[in-house]
């Protein structure tokens, strides 16, 4: 009486539809090997590439799991029954239906990836199948998009509604001098397609909002956050948590950069780290505080790296870790991030189940900007000629003062203004000005609250002065 091998339903087609196969006695390992030799197609489903049994193939001798016996060395005698029993595993987490094949041109292009054990042909096909969305085609989005396109990420989505400005070119390497004034997505798409015609670029020339975020993010596997403001950062985080997507985060300021991977199903999210945004105006943007041009190149490249690792499932990603980079000291520090049990969006008892009004949440636009009397640049030029007593108060920073100034102006940076009010003559007419007219309105508010009555703010700041009155003043 031979050994009977019970075949589970999913494998029956490979043994002619039978539910049992008779074989001669031997170890379980020998019996399975014989089975795979007789039915070639069975092998791939029973064994991994390295020749070991797949984790989810369970083998029983009569009614005992061979893991509790001598494993594959367990002997089956005549009359015994060997059963192959699947356990079935799976579950959510991005990427992969049928992986696309690589063309000859792609095999050549990606050869340095293909010979890398951690990537190889399988990994490269995963990269080709991947869909990565970049929110922002600016400082961080530029290097991230370039490297991801070069690496062969099959679909790259870009969300940005800005046009290219000359001040962008110091760091936003997707764009060039010839496209100043054109939409960023137009030049980004052209640059990426030139770099790698095998990738598909999808553009979303809109501002990401609570109304469109889920719809846009839904079709992508990974989101790379290259935004420069808090409302969008919280929006991207919450949308990623709600959709279960990994959010590859980066931020930069002056000489410092941060990077992490927020993937709520596996670790902390942005809200676990920062439950509330800072008060509006406390953290200056790059436009206000400046940034070293090469810094986004470093942080954006880290984001591209992490996105690729997520696609490949290789290495240790930055999930649960925040990397802090100080370019001046050249020092990387690492903080461990813990999931906040009270996190309103990714905690066990979330209070947020849909996207909210992020501008209101971050206090942006919640209180209307102060509206005081303004003066245009042309009118100011006339008043300065006619009224030598007019006090022109520049509330910018010293560094900005060194770039350019309006003749006759006096510098008191906004932060020092409350303590230096005594330097001003309340009887004189005062015009405040800054770079573009925002800070000078805040200065106006301070002056009016202190009792100064004859005050106005230069509309459009020194920028307007340079364009409308005195072209010898450089714009910055």
């Amino acid at each position, binding site marked *: 009486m031979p050994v009977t091998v019970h075949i*589970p*339903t*999913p*494998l*029956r*087609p*490979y043994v002619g539809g039978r539910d049992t196969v008779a074989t001669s006695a031997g170890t379980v390992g020998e019996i399975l090997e014989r089975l795979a030799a007789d039915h070639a*197609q069975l092998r*791939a*489903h029973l064994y991994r590439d390295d020749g070991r049994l*797949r*984790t*989810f193939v*369970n083998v*029983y001798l009569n009614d005992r*799991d061979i893991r509790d016996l001598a494993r594959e060395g367990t002997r089956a005698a005549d009359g015994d029954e060997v*059963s192959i*029993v*699947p*356990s*079935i*595993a*799976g*579950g*959510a*987490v*991005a*990427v*992969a*239906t*049928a*992986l696309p094949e690589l063309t000859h041109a792609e095999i050549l292009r990606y050869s340095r990836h293909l010979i890398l054990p951690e990537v190889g042909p399988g990994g490269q096909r*995963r990269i080709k199948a991947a869909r990565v969305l970049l929110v922002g085609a600016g400082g961080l989005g530029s290097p991230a998009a370039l490297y991801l396109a070069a690496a062969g990420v099959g679909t790259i989505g870009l969300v940005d509604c800005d046009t290219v400005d000359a001040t962008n070119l110091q760091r936003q390497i997707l764009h060039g001098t010839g496209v100043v004034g054109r939409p960023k997505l137009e030049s980004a798409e052209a640059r990426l397609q030139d770099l790698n015609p095998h990738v598909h670029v999808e553009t979303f020339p809109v501002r990401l909002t609570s109304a469109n975020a889920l719809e846009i993010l*839904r079709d992508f596997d990974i989101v790379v956050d290259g935004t420069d403001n808090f409302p969008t950062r919280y929006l991207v985080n919450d949308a990623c948590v*709600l*959709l*279960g997507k990994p959010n590859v985060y980066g931020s930069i300021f002056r000489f410092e950069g941060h990077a992490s991977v927020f993937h709520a*199903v*596996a670790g902390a999210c942005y809200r676990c780290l920062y439950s509330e945004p800072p008060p509006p105006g406390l953290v200056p943007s790059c436009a206000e505080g400046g940034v070293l041009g090469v810094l986004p190149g470093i942080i954006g490249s880290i984001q591209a790296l992490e996105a690729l690792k997520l696609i490949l*499932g290789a290495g240790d990603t930055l999930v649960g870790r925040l990397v802090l980079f100080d370019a001046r000291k050249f020092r990387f520090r690492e903080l461990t991030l813990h999931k906040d049990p009270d996190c309103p969006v990714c905690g066990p008892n979330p209070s947020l*189940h849909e996207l909210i009004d992020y501008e209101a949440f971050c206090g942006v636009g919640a209180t209307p900007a102060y509206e005081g009397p303004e003066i245009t640049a042309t009118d100011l030029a006339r008043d300065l000629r006619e009224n030598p007593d007019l006090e022109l108060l520049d509330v910018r920073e010293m560094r900005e003062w060194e770039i350019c100034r309006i003749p006759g102006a006096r510098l008191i940076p906004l932060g020092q203004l409350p303590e230096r009010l005594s330097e001003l003559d309340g009887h004189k007419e005062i015009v405040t000005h800054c770079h573009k007219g925002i800070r000078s309105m805040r200065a106006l508010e301070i002056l009016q609250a202190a009792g100064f009555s004859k005050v106005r703010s230069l509309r459009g700041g020194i920028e307007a002065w340079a364009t409308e009155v005195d072209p010898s003043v450089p714009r910055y």
Partner: protein
Amino acid sequence: MRIVPGVLAEIRRHLAAAYPTEGCGLLLGTRGPNGDVVVRRQLPVPNRRAADGGGRTRYLIGPEDFLTAEREARQASLVVVGTYHSHPDVPARPSAYDTEHAWPWCCYLIASVAGGEVQEERVWELRDDRSGFVERELEVKES
């Protein structure tokens, strides 16, 4: 793959109740000579990953549950034709993990569930060479 409406309704109820954990179960039915699959019964199975905290993104149907299902199927002159599971807050397409651990000749019905409601179901089958899944049409019809 054809499924009886009442069976699909039961599956939806099970997966909605399991949210935000992944729910899973086995599909019993028949597979015709030309590969046509008809699902006649569903068998909810405890997610063996729910206990270790991995149940939000993983499911596991243990071998003893599979054996029980095969026995039940045999008594009803049916076979195990597939499995079903939910992807809480994630689209109803197979993940890389699904591909790695999939069985051939087995229909994978994946339902995306958001906020406790089933959004859509899609059916996939592993390619013979394990290179990935192909989608199969889902037909809801009284047999």
